[in-house]
């Protein structure tokens, strides 16, 4: 083989080797993470504490509210971070406070029901909790979705002296 051919063959081999090695190493495997459908219920794990239940209720409520509003869970989460973010979101999607409050309440109700169905919440807690979240004002609803722990605290307050037994009502 003369030098000219050797040079061309060498160039082809080097190029194919590089592309082949990078492909084998996963060079074409990246696909951007897409937002999941918020209307589809996410699987519940077995929570070991009230704190973990609160976490899952928060996420489930966020999904439920996002589903009601027709946006992704991530978009709604960012909208709830600050007052300004909420205003930008309202302007962009044409969603007023009343509609947002309604969606978040619906999300919270769905989350409590999901938790009850998954066996994470006893019907003794789920019932009053559902009634409680059905009528709460927007700011409080946002606070509950941001911090599931405050939801548990609300139940504790609702139950009054019996609230101390809450841990024991876990399934």
């Amino acid at each position, binding site marked *: 083989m003369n030098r*000219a*051919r050797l040079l061309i063959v060498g*160039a*082809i081999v080097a190029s194919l080797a590089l*592309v082949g090695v990078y492909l084998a190493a996963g060079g074409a495997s990246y696909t951007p*993470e*897409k*937002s999941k459908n918020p209307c589809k219920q996410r699987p519940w794990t077995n929570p070991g504490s009230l704190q973990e239940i609160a976490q899952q209720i928060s996420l489930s409520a966020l999904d439920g509210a996002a589903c009601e509003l027709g946006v992704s869970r991530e978009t709604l989460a960012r909208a709830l971070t600050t007052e300004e973010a909420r205003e930008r979101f309202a302007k962009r999607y044409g969603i007023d406070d009343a509609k947002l409050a309604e969606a978040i309440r619906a999300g919270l109700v769905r989350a409590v029901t999901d938790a009850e169905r998954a066996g994470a919440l006893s019907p003794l807690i789920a019932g009053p909790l559902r009634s409680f979240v059905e009528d709460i004002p927007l700011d409080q609803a946002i606070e509950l979705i941001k*911090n599931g722990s405050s939801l548990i605290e609300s139940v504790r307050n609702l139950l009054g002296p019996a609230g101390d037994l809450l841990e024991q009502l876990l399934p």
Partner: protein
Amino acid sequence: MSTQAPRPRVAALALAVGLVLADSSVVVLALPEIYRELDTSVAGVTWVLISFNLVMALAAVPAALLARRFGPGRAAAVGLAIFAGAGLACGLSDQLSTLIVARCVQALGGALAVTAALELLPATVGSERRAAVVWASAGATGAALGPAVGGLLTELVSWQSIFLIQVPVALGAAVPILAVARHEAVTGIIEPELRRTGRPHFWANVALAMVSAAIAAALFLLVLLLIEGWRLSPIGAAIVVSVMPLAALVGSRLGGYVESARARAAAGAILVSGGLGGLALLPSAEVALTVPPQILVGVGLSLVLSALTETALGGRAPQAIHGGWTISARHAGVVIGLLALTPIFTHDIAEQRVDAINAGTAVILDSPVEPLLKIKLTQKVTDRLDEEKGKVPTIGPAFEPLPTDPRERAETVQLREELQDQLNRGATHAFSLSFGLAALLGLLALIPIALARRVEL
């Protein structure tokens, strides 16, 4: 014509050619800095690069004709003076529009200086072949060193210093040439040197344009990926992209062993495409992974550019005109590459940003950290992405201060790393399509290379 010892003049002419052709790429590493400082868009800032190359492409042949008409010594001296003056204007610009206008004027002066230099060199070095080698080598050296020098100056001084430092260098290069200009004014030596201009080598110039488009894309996109995507400093990026000129040196030695210009051109185009293919398929966001593709691009560009320039100039006279055609083809290729790929990668970067924000929010929401912390982190990470104007941010500060509880701390650190990995992979992916298209362009250059073989060689 010789009014002084040729060595300083050869050095001055080589310096002029290197300086002007370096200017095509010297600003590449400064673009992110200019983009932020002049508060423009990515598409807008690419015009700092496109304007220079466009005017070079359009002005190279007319400039060569002017140089032959009015005397190459005078043309080179005037060209360098215009180049220096416009460089000063570039350095003093505080708006994108004035910077772009100054870059256009700089390219006009540059075109005049470079083509006139090729007309002056044969008489200075003794033969047209030797002149072509000096001219091509000076240009290749300038183009290869340009990005690294630009990156160093941007980091150590400012982006303006890239242009300001050119002023004394250009004027210094003009000094030995002034003697030739004075001699021309006295003797009027132009007419006897005028010869009939032959037809330019069409396919070699088309191939040069296509390969130059692919190479420009490689350099420009890689710099953007390193600085905007992976957050390297201009000096860091300059060091990384220095692999390409170093590999080009190896390529030029390698080319010396093969006589066939078409074999060198074909092998070079294949290597450039292979390297770009590698950059399109980077498995992860690691600087070391850009080294093998850069080696292929560097070796390839040196083989293909020298072989095609040699083919375009070979046996054709006058050299200045045909040199003008090669300059025109190369710079037109750069413009076409940037114009074709800029909308694609700017769209992909914008899309990647939305994906990155969503992916980042999803990672935070699904993490085991405490809910209130999740909301705070979501807000901070979104703010960081906004603050960086599209640049992929270092999100570490968004996670400060770390929780004191060891378990929460470990969870937060893991979350931070997962999130940064998502952002880095997204940024890398945003460039894949553009690198892939540039690779295709390099491969398509094999068609004119093959046609050049059949029709004209």
